[in-house]
Structure formats: structure tokens, C-alpha cells
């Protein structure tokens, strides 16, 4: 029985994809927000208005509408800086997404500071956007990648080898704030990310944080985090696709050089030389995703007015606890992750069923209207912790109602029993 929708402050009303699908017969249960979230109505409206009104490109035209567009674009950069506690809007680089942001760090900074024999520390739980990137950069720079393992009992990063690793020439420590498979926000308890950053900082390494799974689920404060770079995507916040943010601490700018060249990033060009602009503009060659940045402005405004991250963390954690309690008693269900931490500050729960493949479960759940993710979630190395089995991942967001989770638990139970009956 589907009960009246209750979400955090009833925020689901701001997501047209959910409102439009509210008829129970065609109800769409969105449990794949960790991949991409439903889009906020204010962002859609702002982008529609932008496209329907006179506008120009940024930092180029001198006519009034182009000047206005430039002002709006830079105001959003400023709002983004405030959202993550950056000291200056010059520390905010717009990219095409978190993957692009991380690649930008690697190519504009790491490639210039890594020497043969230097080390890069990552964790086993990194998304491929981080893992593969640093493998490739290490090859190019003749550097080494050191992987901090995931403890198979706690599903947390094992820091026991960190002190030994930091005796080597570690130049980069690149880690996720929240694994897209395992879930908890690793800065919340002050025991993992904080320790890792503090020790790595003391050893002189630059700190790169992948905040793709954190940005919409906890407060980000780059000063408190003490990171040098931080990357995230806007579509995971309820904004448009095709836009990401890279925070680059001012003190790192001197070590960074552009790796994409074109209009908008140069200061002067002659037939035999060029100079480029100061950051962030020198890292935004070509016409940027202006409409998406306008959409981001509306997203940030929405978060400022409606989202209390303290409440949101507790709410999503409550949904995780509800889901875990509902499925853990089903025979054969194995939860991949730390249930206790997920029940304090999680938003994703990954699991598998003995004898039934994750794809089969996910396809069956789809027939019940539940959208979940199945597979290895672009994070192959972490699946080695549980023998490389594909998992089903469900993710919750501000618009998920407890009644949705109840429906999901029921659908999971039905799906498993249906497969058990024929296999």
C-alpha cells in the first residue's frame, strides 16, 4: 500500500519528473539518484528562460545582453565559491562534470609536478574516474600508484599502511569523500578522511578530493577539509548534465598550466607567441556551458533556501537504516557496506543475493517501477573485496519518501522469491 508521500519538507514537489509521474499506476520510484538525480524545476525554468531570452556569450561581446550574461555567469561562480566555502571565486573552474574536473587536475597540475619515482596515493574504493586517471598519469610520469585497501570487515579505508607509504616521495593523495558503492561520507566521523588528509598534508602531498557523491548530501567546506582540489558534478545535485566544478586552491595556481587552448583563455596572441589569462579563465577554453551555469545558479539558490544539510544527512541515513532493516532478513541477501555508518550518514546501499545475478534482480525491479543500478558501478577494484560480484545499488535523496523505501523493500522481496522459485 502506497501511503501519502512524505519527504524532507516535501521537497519532491520541486522535481517535475516525480510530480509528473505521481499517478500510482505509472509511478516511477527513483532509486538511482547516485548516478543522476531528478532535475529541479527552478533549474529547468532558469535554463528555459535563458534560452528564450536574448543572451550572448560570456567574456566576449560588448553589447548589453552579452555583458548581462557575463555578469550572471560570474555571479554563479561567486555563489559556487560560497557554497563550498572557497576563499575566492577565482578558485572555481567550470568543467563538463566531475570526471572532467579530475582530469583537469591531473593534466593542469599533477603532470607538471610529478617526477619519476614519485608516488600517488588512492583508495581501492575510487570510481574509475579517479582510479584509471591516476594509473594513466603515473605511467606517463613514471610515478607509482599506491592503493589504500578497503577493510573487508568494516568496508572502510584501511589506513594502517599510510605512515609507511608517506615515507616515500608522495606528491598526490587523491581520494573520494564518499564511495559510490560503499556509501558513507568519510569525513563525517573525523576518523578516515580527516586523518588521511592531515597526515598527507604533513608529508607535503597535494590533496585531491572527489566530491561527486558528497556534494548533494553534506556540507562542503574546502577550508575545513584542507584540500587543494575538489571535484563534483551538478547533475547529481538536481541540476543540469554537462556541468562540473573544480575547486583549485589559490596557492596551487602557480603550479598549474592550461592544457586546453582556444578562445576565452588567452590574454594576448601574436603570430609567434601567446599569453594566457589568470585562473580560472585560462582553464575554460572555448564557449563554456553557459545555460547549465545559469541552471546551477538556480540550484544553489534552491539549496540555500530549502536544504539544511544537517537534516538531510539524518533523513537519508534514516532511509538507509529502513532499507537495510527491511532486506537484511531476506535469505541470501548480503549487504556490501558498513550498515552502522550508512545508518548514520549514508545515501547509497549496495547488496547482492546469493545465486541470483544483480542484473536479473534489477531488471525485475524495473518491472515494479523501481529504478536501481546493477553491475560494478564503474568501480571494479573495490568489488575485489567481495570477489568481484556485481551488486545492486539503491540510492536515496531529498525526494525519497519512507513509503517509497517500503515499496522498494516489498519489490525486492517479491523479485528474490520469484527468481528463487524458478532457479
Amino acid at each position, binding site marked *: 500500500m502506497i501511503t501519502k508521500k512524505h519527504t524532507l519538507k516535501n521537497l519532491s514537489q520541486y522535481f517535475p519528473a516525480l510530480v509528473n509521474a505521481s499517478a500510482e499506476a505509472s509511478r516511477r520510484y527513483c532509486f538511482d539518484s547516485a548516478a543522476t538525480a531528478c532535475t529541479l524545476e527552478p533549474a529547468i525554468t532558469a535554463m528555459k528562460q535563458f534560452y528564450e531570452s536574448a543572451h550572448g556569450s560570456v567574456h566576449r561581446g560588448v553589447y548589453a545582453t552579452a555583458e548581462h550574461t557575463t555578469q550572471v555567469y560570474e555571479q554563479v561562480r561567486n555563489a559556487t565559491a560560497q557554497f563550498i566555502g572557497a576563499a575566492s571565486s577565482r578558485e572555481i573552474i567550470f568543467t563538463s562534470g566531475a570526471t572532467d574536473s579530475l582530469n583537469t587536475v591531473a593534466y593542469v597540475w599533477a603532470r607538471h609536478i610529478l617526477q619519476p619515482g614519485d608516488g600517488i596515493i588512492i583508495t581501492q574504493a575510487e570510481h574509475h574516474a579517479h582510479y584509471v586517471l591516476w594509473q594513466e598519469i603515473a605511467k606517463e610520469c613514471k610515478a607509482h600508484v599506491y592503493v589504500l585497501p578497503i577493510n573487508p570487515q568494516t568496508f572502510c579505508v584501511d589506513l594502517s599502511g599510510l605512515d609507511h607509504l608517506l615515507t616515500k616521495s608522495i606528491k598526490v593523495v587523491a581520494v573520494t569523500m564518499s564511495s559510490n558503492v560503499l556509501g558513507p561520507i568519510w569525513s563525517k566521523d573525523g576518523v578516515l578522511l580527516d586523518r588521511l588528509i592531515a597526515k598527507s598534508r604533513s608529508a607535503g602531498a597535494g590533496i585531491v578530493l572527489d566530491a561527486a557523491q558528497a556534494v548533494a548530501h553534506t556540507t562542503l567546506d574546502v577550508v575545513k577539509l584542507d584540500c587543494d582540489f575538489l571535484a563534483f558534478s551538478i547533475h547529481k545535485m538536481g541540476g543540469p548534465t554537462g556541468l562540473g566544478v573544480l575547486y583549485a586552491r589559490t596557492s596551487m595556481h602557480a603550479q598549474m598550466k592550461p592544457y586546453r587552448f582556444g578562445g576565452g583563455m588567452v590574454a594576448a596572441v601574436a603570430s609567434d607567441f601567446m599569453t594566457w589569462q589568470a585562473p580560472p579563465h585560462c582553464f575554460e577554453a572555448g564557449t563554456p556551458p553557459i545555460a547549465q551555469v545559469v541552471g546551477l545558479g538556480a540550484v544553489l539558490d534552491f539549496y540555500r533556501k530549502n536544504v539544511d544539510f544537517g537534516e538531510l544527512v539524518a533523513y537519508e541515513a534514516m532511509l538507509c537504516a529502513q532499507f537495510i532493516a527491511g532486506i537484511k532478513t531476506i535469505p541470501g541477501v548480503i549487504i556490501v557496506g558498513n550498515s552502522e555508518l550508512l545508518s548514520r550518514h549514508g545515501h547509497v546501499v549496495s547488496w547482492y543475493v546469493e545465486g541470483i545475478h544483480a542484473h536479473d534482480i534489477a531488471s525485475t525491479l524495473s*518491472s515494479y517501477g523501481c529504478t536501481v543500478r*546493477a*553491475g*560494478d558501478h564503474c568501480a571494479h577494484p573495490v568489488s575485489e573485496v567481495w570477489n568481484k560480484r556485481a551488486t545492486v545499488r539503491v540510492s536515496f535523496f531529498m525526494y525519497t519518501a519512507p513509503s517509497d523505501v517500503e515499496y522498494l523493500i516489498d519489490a525486492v522481496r*517479491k523479485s528474490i522469491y*520469484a527468481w528463487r522459485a524458478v532457479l
Partner: protein
Amino acid sequence: MNGAMLVHDELLDHYKFPRYRKVIENPHFSALTFNQSCGDRISISGRISDGVIIACGFQGEGCVLSQAAASLLMEHIHGSEVAEVRKITAAFMQERIGIAVGPTRLRCVLLALETLMQALEKNQ
């Protein structure tokens, strides 16, 4: 069709009782591939005599679709001329499994065929 599971009895039968699940010794063709979206793997090996596949087998782990499709494919190619086997298309496999799937699940269905084609290509 089994309700919400979207598979039919023949697929379930091939999944539960796979044909040709074996490794062929001293193979003339063999390959191993992975499904990039879930890490599932299929390996295929076989022997050829006078242009005909006289032995074939697969190994692997995966969902009902990937394993049943591999079993169906082995059954289809055993005793067939290599030249004919090379002409097997994705559309044939889609039709053979008898259910409609989206592009991501289609990778599961086609994993065995891709492996087979790689194996034959390598051993040309």
C-alpha cells in the same frame, strides 16, 4: 514468460542446465571477454576440422541472459561451418533469445557472440 522476471522457460532451462559448458583442450580458437558494466566474463574455445566446428564450449559467470545466450550460441554453432558462423549477427541473437531488451542488457545477450567472433578473428 515468467511474469516480472521477463524471461521464458527456454532461457531458464539453458541457464540452469547449460549446454557445452566446458573447456576444449588444444583449441583452434579461444577468447575471453568481460561485460564492462558488471564485470561478468565469458570464455569460449573450440576446434575446427575441414572448416566445421567439431567441438566448442564456454565458461563464465553472469546473469541469466548472458549465460543462457552463451549456451544457445554453442548449441547453434556446434557442427556448423565456420564461414556460416562468422555471419551470425546481433540481430540473430536478439531474435534467438526471444525477448526484448534495452541497450545495456543487450550487452549481456551479445557477450558470448562477441567472445566467439574475437576467438575466430584471433585464430584466422
